[in-house]
């Protein structure tokens, strides 16, 4: 008899719990709405205004507007949903009875955690890329075709940032056990600590993974600074450190 592998179980977790569907809905929705908003920003602003004496003039949209609008929301709102999905998969000890089932069978805690992180990351990145394709197509139709090179690089940077967010959530899930607490800790780290605080510190900001959030706009407008590779490398490094730390801490922890 062949048992069911942990990889298949994690795939089923993503599909059968409809978490993959939720991710797809969020990213595709953003991919559909954001370029539309960028294209009709001027009309939307003026129709929303009550005064006939004030007319807001918005520069004609360029392809970078549609894509960067999507990326901005995908790496904040989409990231929020991704963190929730990751927390529900990676907080292994949040249910002690289920944790006993897994821990008394797996060879190591890392053997349980790694497939969860990789499969969730794959689901999140896949949904993000589908959303980006939708945004790309709609931007091309409504505004104009963005350049392929910067688009591919933006896709890479966004994917790495989302995978980094999943590893941070996995570490939080091991440290705090509760899924909701893991979501809270991850959101604080990713959206409150990294973006507005550490991301603004001179010198340090260039190395922060949060630099990847605004990368697409700079790349598509050709104003890209040269420090994205540093932020990319740091995101990969910190993600790996978070994963190792989560595996080590989880292995040492007792089941409640």
């Amino acid at each position: 008899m062949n048992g069911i592998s942990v990889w298949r179980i994690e795939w089923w977790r993503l599909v059968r719990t409809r978490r993959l569907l939720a991710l797809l809905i969020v990213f595709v929705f953003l991919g559909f709405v954001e370029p539309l908003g960028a294209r009709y920003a001027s009309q939307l602003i003026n129709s929303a205004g009550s005064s006939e004496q004030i007319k807001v003039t918005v520069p004609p949209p360029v392809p970078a507007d549609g894509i960067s609008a999507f990326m901005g929301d995908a790496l904040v709102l989409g990231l929020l949903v991704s963190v929730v999905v990751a927390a529900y998969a990676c907080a292994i000890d949040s249910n002690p009875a289920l944790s006993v089932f897994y821990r008394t069978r797996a060879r190591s805690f890392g053997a349980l955690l790694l497939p969860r992180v990789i499969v969730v990351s794959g689901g999140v990145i896949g949904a993000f890329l589908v959303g980006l394709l939708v945004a790309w197509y709609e931007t091309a139709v409504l505004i104009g075709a963005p350049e392929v090179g910067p688009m591919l690089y933006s896709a890479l940077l966004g994917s790495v940032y989302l995978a980094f967010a999943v590893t941070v959530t996995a570490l939080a899930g091991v440290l705090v056990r509760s899924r909701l607490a893991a979501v809270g800790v991850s959101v604080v780290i990713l959206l409150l600590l990294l973006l507005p605080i550490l991301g603004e510190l001179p010198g340090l900001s260039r190395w922060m993974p949060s630099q990847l959030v605004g990368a697409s706009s700079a790349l598509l407008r050709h104003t890209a600074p040269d420090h994205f590779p540093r932020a990319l490398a740091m995101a990969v490094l910190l993600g790996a450190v978070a994963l190792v730390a989560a595996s080590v801490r989880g292995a040492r922890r007792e089941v409640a």
Partner: protein
Amino acid sequence: MSQVVVEAPAADLTVTTRGLVRDYGGGAGLHGVDLAVPRNGVYGLVGPNGAGKTTLLSILAGLRRADAGEVQVHVGAGRIAVCPDTPEFEPWLTAAEVVRQSYGLVFPTRRGAAASRPGDPGLVAKVLAEVGLADAARRRVGGFSRGMTQRLGLAVALVLDPELLILDEPTSALDPAGRAGLLALISRLADERTVIFSSHILADVQRVADYIGVLDHGHLLFQGPTDDLISSHLQPAWEVRVRGSAAELAGLLRQADWVASVQPVSEGVLRVEGTSTGAVEEGLPGILAAAGVRLVSVVPVDADLETAFLALTGGGGSDEHARPGTQESGAGE
């Protein structure tokens, strides 16, 4: 810090602990437990709430660490299966998938390679049938009752064909028929493996356990054959039924030096406890004759584990009854 050492099979013992301590403070935890679980058979672990049973089983399973002491588990690597009292599984898997998941976690296969441990293709159906879940094999476990989940917990352990099976309160959620079936299954399983079985339901333990360990306040008060516990902690007792009043008979019995106590149960019925079985068997006929009563029956009162347990723990384990010393008996030492 203690270590759980998995060793090559030893001849007569599956699990031994030496001076096992896990102190939660306030007297809770384990305080120097020396466990000796014989190979094959059922070892019943009993004790009141808070006695330390779950802590002890968790340490044996490697889920918790001891503050001090040593644990030796003499079974092959990966040959321990644990079934908690309230097991839980992914609610979006079917019962058959949960069993296969359990197998896949312990015996992972690599793509293109044969299974690291060959198994019977019909094993899933077999273990589900053994625990009475054959008809529910394709149902998602999210809709299972607690009793069904508990039986599935045993199935996911059985599919691993463990040498050591640790069951924490496995019958707590089952109806009488389910309990009887599961106890019969546990007895069968113990022919080829060691089962450590903790339960509050002492009648269940008495029914299946060959050996018993009594924990109270983190101390192992007794371990040895179940029959030894029952016989060594009970005074032999008989129920004497006579026609008419038994008052005169009770008076004569109280004067006999081999009688420990005489208690009227109802009109014409006495419960007589003696100092030993032999003394009662020799002395009782003479006193019955001297009293001139019309004897209806003399029936030995069945000794049961519950009575022995209460005698040992002082009726529920208040602090003044906690005894740090371990009484051991016979086999299993």
